[in-house]
């Protein structure tokens, strides 16, 4: 008896997804408010390094980091969503179920709505440090909420944890809305601008932290393939197979939240991608095995994020669309299509 014959199909799908990600990456570098030809992109990468042309600067300092950010953020959110869906055995779980994005938004709200009006000098004039402060506030807020939820993770079962994260999100959201209630319209505007999300704020100087967090999170998640497969059948089942259930649970939740928190810190809260990408991959690869789904989600998430940013930049038009709106507009039809074709998403979870 052989293993299921679907592996050749998987190889083909991986090749297609990989090619798609590369093509979208190139498209993201070429297309934007001004179109850059492939030849110019080639020149920027491999041409004379003493060339100080604007084109080269745009490609290397703006387009490339933005495209890489989209790629990394998409991968991170997709894998984080997959980990959450498996740990909670719930198709509706997303990277933010434990409340990391509400924690991040509280951090940012405190910076933009409380600190900034109080000490305007702090952010005024220094554009970069202002942004960095937002990043630190968002990451810090996410970390605090995460620490609270994970401190319960040893003691309660996963369903309680899910509800705990939800309640914490509501409570933190309430604090944010009180802050907004007492804030000036222009401050609220800048908070909103953050909440739309963008891949354009990660400069090369931030990439070291951003990239390290996400790449190490993604690599570490690959080590969870085997226990996650067992966890999908229930924690008791996993335990009987020799899985250290509590350790895997904490590790997976921590990894997912680290990745989701990093993305939220640097790019703002980007919804939908984290739910949609794992479902899309399950639908494409027709399996729930994590040694297929984790790499597939890395690629699928990257592809969706790159495609969404391409649409958000609205090449050929003036102006741009909020990224969050685009991910939902791209993602919702995908989920609906998968749902209709597959009849029943619960089938993947029981």
């Amino acid at each position: 008896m052989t293993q299921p014959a679907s592996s050749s199909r998987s190889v083909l799908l991986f090749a297609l997804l990989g090619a798609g990600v590369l093509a979208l990456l190139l498209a993201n570098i070429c297309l934007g408010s001004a179109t850059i030809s492939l030849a110019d992109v080639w020149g920027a990468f491999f041409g004379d390094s003493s060339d100080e042309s604007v084109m080269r600067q745009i490609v290397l300092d703006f387009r490339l980091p933005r495209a890489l950010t989209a790629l990394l953020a998409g991968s991170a959110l997709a894998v984080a969503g997959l980990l959450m869906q498996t740990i909670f055995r719930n198709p509706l779980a997303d990277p933010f179920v434990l409340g990391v994005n509400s924690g991040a938004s509280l951090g940012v709200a405190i910076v933009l709505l409380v600190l900034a009006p109080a000490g305007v000098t702090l952010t005024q004039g220094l554009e970069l440090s202002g942004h960095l402060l937002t990043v630190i506030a968002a990451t810090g807020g996410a970390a605090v909420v995460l620490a609270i939820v994970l401190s319960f993770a040893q003691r309660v079962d996963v369903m309680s944890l899910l509800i705990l994260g939800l309640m914490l999100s509501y409570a933190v959201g309430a604090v944010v809305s009180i802050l907004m209630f007492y804030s000036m319209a222009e401050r609220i505007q800048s908070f909103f601008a953050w909440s739309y999300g963008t891949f354009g704020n990660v400069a090369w100087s931030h990439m070291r932290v951003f990239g390290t967090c996400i790449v190490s999170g993604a690599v570490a998640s690959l080590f969870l393939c085997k226990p996650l497969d067992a966890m999908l059948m229930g924690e008791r089942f996993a335990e009987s197979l020799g899985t250290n259930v509590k350790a895997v649970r904490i590790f997976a939740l921590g990894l997912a939240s680290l990745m989701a928190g990093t993305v939220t810190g640097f790019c703002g809260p980007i919804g939908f991608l984290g739910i949609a990408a794992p479902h899309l991959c399950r639908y494409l690869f027709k399996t729930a095995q994590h040694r297929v789904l984790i790499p597939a989600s890395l690629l699928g998430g990257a592809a969706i994020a790159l495609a969404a940013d391409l649409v958000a930049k609205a090449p050929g038009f003036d102006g741009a669309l909020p990224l969050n709106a685009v991910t939902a507009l791209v993602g919702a039809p995908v989920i609906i299509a998968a749902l209709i074709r597959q009849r029943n998403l619960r089938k993947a979870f029981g």
Partner: protein
Amino acid sequence: MSVKPLQTESLRVGYKIKGQEPRTVASGLDLELVPGEFVCLLGPNGVGKSTLIRSLSGMQAALGGSIHISGTDVSSMSPKEKARSVSVVLTDSLPVGMFDGYSVVALGRHPHTSWTGGLGAEDKERISWVLEAVGAGHLAHRQISELSDGERQKIMIARALAQETQIMLLDEPTAFLDLPRRVELMRTLRDLARREGLCILLSTHDLDLALRSADKLWLLASDGTLKTGMPEQLALEGEIAATFASGEVDWDPEQGAFRMHRNACAKVYVGGTGAERVWTCRALSRIGYEVVDNEEESKLSIQVIENCWRVSFEGENFECRSLSELVERLLGSNV
């Protein structure tokens, strides 16, 4: 003395609920499992069969006493060590998700594979073997979500066998199966136990089947005591009757089964032979008659002669052409 695969000493099992006294479901258990033996755990509903199985597998901490697996205290074993010595099939873990049968069975190899879960030649060989052993070869390439409950149960048992442990504990694995499948499964497990030298403990509600297939019975009574022994011995000694004692049913030692308890309304003598007489007696006792052996004892007498039931009651006689006609007439006449 050789080391037993599984041995307990004055084991006490039960639940711990926060802020409450631990609830003991069974205590003073000195049990052992011997290689090649197929043991059935029987007991009334809610008596704690599942708790005992979970405790023996080391998944739930015992309240007292000790459990040794091949000489090692279970509480000092790592999850992986436990998974290499004991496999468990639990009631609440029917597989779900987008897995095919093969992948689910392959999960059973987890304690033996590296962190990637990649299957070596030995693993693949074992998987093929267990799929054939439980008669689930044809389910390997089908999605789990498309299988019936019974087929899924087979896959789960194959999964446990794939784990290649000497001890296998199953909590009511026959619950979803129809009778022929149940008989088949019990026979498969018993044969595996003998052939491979496994210790298999299976909890079930199916008394009749357990009596016929188990090498040994563990009877867990409502008072938390456990009796062990050969099925036939326990039946003869009246232990089975005592374990399941209830006002509603009577143990019939000659049939080896429980019968609905009825206050017989009248006695009846049934004459005749063969299957027709057997089924006539069953129909009569179902509607409340007590079948007696001596014609003198009862006023009602029924002679079964090839497709004809001759009834005589206090000098009155009539004939029926079928068993259902007989039952209808008797119910209608209130004799």
